[in-house]
């Protein structure tokens, strides 16, 4: 799971110990120093760093949306319908990414839509993940009847059609972003519960878990200190995959009129709305789709970095690879050394 270290990066002449993941040095206890060390480590994992930058940019974009967006995302202009992006034949610089079937500026819609898409995605993953993982931990760790009860409950919820559940809840409470988040979380926590339970069952058998119990650790301690950290990798992966699914699920609800209500907008809603115009105006679907894809990709890259960083052994391997690659670059870039050898 190592990243190929890219040889094109210009900082090849940096001293290798500057980028050492601070594994051997526990002296730096101040949070600032730790954050700095972590950031330096991130900088040396290029894909992870790219992901990090994109995520920061997206978050800033969402926060400052009204300041950045050139138009009101809900402003319609029937004269300027279906203008293609600027690089197309009829494109204009007035609407860089074109306009939709109601003449709304797509760039502005993307910028504003990022707010709801990201809030819904993050909130649902956090809610469903938090609840599902807790349930899975309890079921897997304590086993027996507790396990049977929780897992049968999970089976029941899974057997219940998700869309029907959403319809019922949304019809009773009324559509809003909060309701969408609750509905999607209610509909999505089971996968975390099942997966967590499965991993707990296998990690529970590890001798180090028994060792922790043997020295007198309470269940709570054993779960949070020994079991949970050792299942971060699969859970991180699942969380990232779920984020993408949630963004699209929100789109499905919005498309049915149960999710985000116009004039508010989200990426998913735009994808759904643009579907009818796919053959006349591809950009209605493609551009918000790309926004979703880029977000997911960025989260994926960062999560991958976080996964390696959280595993001491993988982390040292990555560090060793990056140092070795740097030495190789140094060698090939200075022919004097080559000649000397």
């Amino acid at each position: 799971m190592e990243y190929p270290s890219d040889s094109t990066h210009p900082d090849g002449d940096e001293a290798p110990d500057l980028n050492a993941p601070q594994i051997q040095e526990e002296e730096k206890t101040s949070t600032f120093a730790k954050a700095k060390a972590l950031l330096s480590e991130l900088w040396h994992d290029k894909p992870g760093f790219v992901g990090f930058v994109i995520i920061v940019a997206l978050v800033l974009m969402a926060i400052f949306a009204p300041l950045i967006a050139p138009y009101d995302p809900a402003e319609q202009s029937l004269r300027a319908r279906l203008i293609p992006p600027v690089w197309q034949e009829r494109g204009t610089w007035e609407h860089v990414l074109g306009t939709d079937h109601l003449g709304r500026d797509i760039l502005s819609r993307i910028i504003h839509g990022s707010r709801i898409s990201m809030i819904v995605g993050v909130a649902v993953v956090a809610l469903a993940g938090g609840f599902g993982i807790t349930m899975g931990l309890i079921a897997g760790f304590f086993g027996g009847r507790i396990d049977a009860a929780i897992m049968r409950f999970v089976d029941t919820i899974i057997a219940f059609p998700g869309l029907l559940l959403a319809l019922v809840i949304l019809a009773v409470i009324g559509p809003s972003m909060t309701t969408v988040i609750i509905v999607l979380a209610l509909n999505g926590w089971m996968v975390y519960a099942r997966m967590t339970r499965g991993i707990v069952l296998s990690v529970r058998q590890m001798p180090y878990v028994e060792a922790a119990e043997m020295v007198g650790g309470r269940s709570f301690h054993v779960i949070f200190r020994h079991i949970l950290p050792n299942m971060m990798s699969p859970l991180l992966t699942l969380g990232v995959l779920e984020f993408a699914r949630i963004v699209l699920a929100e789109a499905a609800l919005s498309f049915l009129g149960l999710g985000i209500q116009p004039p508010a907008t989200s990426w998913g809603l735009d994808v759904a709305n643009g579907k009818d115009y796919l053959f006349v105006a591809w950009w209605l679907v493609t551009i918000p789709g790309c926004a979703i894809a880029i977000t997911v990709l960025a989260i994926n890259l960062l999560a991958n970095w976080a996964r390696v960083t959280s595993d001491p052994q993988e982390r040292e391997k990555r560090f060793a690879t990056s140092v070795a690659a740097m030495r190789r670059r140094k060698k090939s870039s200075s022919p004097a050394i080559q000649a000397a050898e």
Partner: protein
Amino acid sequence: MALAEQIEPAEPLVRVEDLTVRFPGGRAGFWGQTELEVHAIERMSFEIFPGETLGLVGESGSGKTTAGRAVLGRTPVKSGHIYFDGRDITNIEGDARRLLSRDMQLIFQDPYASLNPRMRILDLVAEPLIVHGLVRNRDEAVDEVKELLRKVGLPANAFERFPHAFSGGQRQRVVIARALALKPRFIVADEPVSALDVSIRAQVVNLLQDLQQEFGLTYLFIAHDLSVVQHVSDRIAIMYAGKLFEIGSADAIYSNPKHPYTEALLSAVPVPDPVIQRSQKRIVFEGEPPSPIYPPKGCRFAKRCPLATAQCENEEPPLAEKAPGQFAACWNRN
């Protein structure tokens, strides 16, 4: 070892009485009406005196690990009693059991799996101290951890590393340091060296002996290898198919075994001299241990034993004193 003999008449530190452990073994019958049980340990009794090492030997599946786990309360006990320091600890649970872990600890067989790969050595060794509230956090534990690491022969700077940076022998030293952190009186060592390279086994065994001297520890040393046990044990117990077959002082067991099974085990111990080794007759018994689900009525060794008579087939031999301090379960030996 002489020390142990002096103490011998004292109260035993650990006393196991008629210990029986059975595991659920599935169901049988057309409708699954019969619940089966795996007879892991049947009516086993032994004592361990303060400061001594009892070697527990048996082949795979003989129940020796289960016995160790039962003593530590890690396995539900079907019947019988376990006394620690005169106190019945058979059914102790919860906080009292947690408190008991300050007195009794376990050293695991596989040092590669018994250390959490995501924790530093400092956290691992300090964990017992922290969960028992003896120190508030890891920073307070640093000095004590360094001292423990020094005692088990690890460099002081080891404490900030992760387990994967260490070899098997070093990891086992970490496991030992962890077990010692609470200053226990009794340690169950469950095949502590069988996962290690032969070349470092002696080091770890010697370390365990040195620590025993230093802290006055009492060991239950579980192994399937008589040559290791011979080296460390004051007394030895031989198990077969869930039964205790013979128990006695290490010298007596080695020089004058009373049970035919013990004889066979001893004949399998290699002698570091080819001439003697070739001259020795290896006793090999045909057959396999009996099914633990359907144990035989009589002696569990009867099917393989050269001395077996009709009595052996039908009646289970009691553990009887065949020589002073040496007990064996055999009808045909005195």
